[in-house]
């Protein structure tokens, strides 16, 4: 009872002093952590929600960009610049509003990119492997697709006379960008589909909304080329379409304002003020990882460069634009159990976000940054402040040994190719005895090709079901608050822009 009264009194007392200055006699009043966070509070107090209509919407999707991925990338980016990594800030760290996104699907506890991207751009959760169709359609049920399509915010934008763009470092027919325009019972029908259904690449070229995309930049060139046509970049490679169609030629035949490019030189030569509709496919399949981009034969623009070109082109729209920018290969590097490439692709993704912040106005452009699902990488041990994020755990400068007497890395995976137990070889039916964990004493775990150790051996490290972050900036960004369903992202974009509303 006494304690209750005291608490009440304390509450009254705090209430009475709300907004007052910090007591200067607090012993920590001059501690730099204390003053820095106090300054952050002032900034938050000064924050004003922006409630005008969003003229433009940019949806950034870091595929598989789990919260630990963002944390580790923030540390790595700082350490590479020679500054403190832990307190470093990426562009997303400057966003004023953040929510947590529940990423489960209609039929799955842990989702893949198809239903999650559908949720973000259409407002409904659906089944694993399905793009742009509602949850009544079973995976691969081609016949069930008709009549169960959902409409995407890109389609609404085109119908409203806005301009649209999609960018990805993955194939542009891969699940996340495909969710902007495709409606298919199987995300893998990228260049061919069963009788009665259309493949994803064909759906992109034949997209019947408005005047179609103004900007399409990414990988996946071979999915648009017949299998009889030699790839312009890679010797020995051809297109993979079996129907003989050259969709790049079909794109340019739409009109004189439709251009197709496939290398960095052509990208640099683009006239972004000429009102062109640009199809840029820089790789036969996915574009290079950021860490490998420099060595690419035909040359590739960075994700930030593609974002800058897209925004420059789309800002000429009379009405507004909707743009998706996917950092598509954060996910792929995680699947490979290769944290370094995942983090460098996250840093490149962050540079693209910064580009968008620099080129647009916070008053009229809603920028949403999120991930579609998570991955099993963790940041673990008790490493010293400043310990290299790709290194082994050190405490007090000394390498920490696990209970097996061996060092371990700060970053590790729950499963994947780095599994410490031998996989079954082809033809083997019984597992080999567990080998001792590799001793990392003389291993350079910061090497770009190093695969972090994992517990369970699986050929491809898996997605995970933990919530991901939604970071928001611009008109109505403050609606992102609390723990929300992933499909709320569509609803906020719709509310802020008026698209899909009467």
């Amino acid at each position, binding site marked *: 009872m006494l304690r209750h009264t005291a608490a009440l009194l304390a509450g009254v007392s705090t209430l009475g002093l709300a907004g007052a200055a910090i007591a200067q006699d607090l012993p920590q009043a001059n501690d730099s952590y204390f003053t820095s966070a106090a300054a952050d509070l002032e900034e938050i107090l000064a924050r004003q929600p922006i409630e005008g209509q969003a003229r433009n919407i940019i949806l950034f999707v870091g595929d598989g960009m789990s919260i630990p991925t963002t944390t580790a990338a923030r540390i790595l980016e700082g350490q590479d610049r020679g500054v403190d990594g832990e307190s470093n800030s990426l562009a997303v760290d400057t966003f004023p509003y953040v929510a947590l996104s529940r990423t489960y699907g209609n039929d799955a506890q842990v989702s893949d990119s198809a239903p999650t991207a559908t949720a973000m751009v259409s407002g409904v959760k659906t089944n694993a492997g399905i793009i742009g169709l509602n949850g009544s359609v079973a995976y691969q049920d081609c016949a069930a697709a008709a009549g169960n399509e959902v409409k995407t915010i890109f389609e609404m934008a085109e119908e409203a006379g806005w301009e649209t763009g999609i960018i990805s470092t993955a194939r542009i027919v891969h699940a996340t960008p495909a969710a902007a325009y495709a409606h298919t019972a199987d995300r893998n029908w990228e260049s061919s589909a069963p009788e009665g259904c259309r493949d994803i690449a064909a759906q992109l070229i034949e997209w019947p909304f408005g005047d179609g995309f103004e900007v399409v930049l990414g990988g996946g060139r071979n999915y648009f080329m017949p299998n009889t046509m030699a790839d312009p970049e*890679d*010797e*020995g*490679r051809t297109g*993979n379409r079996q129907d003989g169609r050259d969709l790049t030629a079909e794109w340019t035949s739409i009109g004189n304002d439709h251009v197709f490019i496939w290398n960095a030189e052509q990208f640099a030569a683009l006239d972004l003020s000429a009102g062109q509709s640009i199809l840029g496919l820089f790789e036969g*399949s*996915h574009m290079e990882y950021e860490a*490998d981009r*420099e*060595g*690419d*034969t035909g040359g590739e623009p960075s994700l930030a460069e593609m974002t800058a070109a897209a925004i420059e082109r789309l800002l000429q729209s009379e009405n507004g634009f909707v743009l998706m920018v996917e950092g598509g290969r954060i996910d*792929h590097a995680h699947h*490979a*159990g*290769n944290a370094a490439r995942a983090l460098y692709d996250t840093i490149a993704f962050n540079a693209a976000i910064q580009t968008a912040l620099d080129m647009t106005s916070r008053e009229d452009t809603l920028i949403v940054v999120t991930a579609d699902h998570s991955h099993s990488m963790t940041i673990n041990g008790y490493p010293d402040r400043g310990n290299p994020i790709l290194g082994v755990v050190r405490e007090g400068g000394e390498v920490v040994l696990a209970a097996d007497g061996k060092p371990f890395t700060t970053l590790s995976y729950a499963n994947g*190719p*780095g*599994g410490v137990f*031998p*996989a*079954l*070889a*082809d*033809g*083997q039916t*019984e597992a*080999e*005895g567990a*080998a001792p964990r590799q001793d990392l004493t003389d291993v350079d775990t910061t090497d770009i*090709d190093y*695969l972090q150790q994992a517990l369970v*051996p*699986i*050929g*491809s490290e898996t997605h995970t079901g933990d919530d991901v972050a939604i970071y928001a900036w611009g008109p109505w960004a403050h609606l992102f608050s609390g723990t929300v369903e992933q499909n709320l992202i569509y609803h906020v974009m719709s509310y802020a822009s008026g698209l899909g509303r009467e």
Partner: protein
Amino acid sequence: MPSRRDFLLLSAAAGLTFAVRPSFAAETRLAFNDLYEREAQLSALTEALTGQPVVMTGFMAPPLKAEASFFVLTKTPLAVCPFCETEAQWPDDIVLVLTRGIITAVPFNVPIVARGVLDTGFEIDPETGFVSLIRIEDATFARA
């Protein structure tokens, strides 16, 4: 009669899955990172070692079939069979290893050492259609 598993375990214990030629002075250790100048452009070292005995460490990608006398050596573990999966996203810097005899598959996440004579140049295997730029021929391999 020892089972296949026993054989594998015995081989592993002996550090061998295949007869390995003893290393000799002329054999050069070649690392994946040293293979290329840039994508599809061989390094000067790779060019210089063409026709010479080399040794490389990597991983065995899952073989195309039983009774094969070749496999793909990869820099990092690769769980998919690069011959089988037309859409497989496998790295540019792979090495085709043509062995002296039928191979015994090694789990994809167990490091191996391959030795043989380096061969380079664009080639399409007439049987499998597999495209390769770097090969180790007359090869043997063992667990690392």
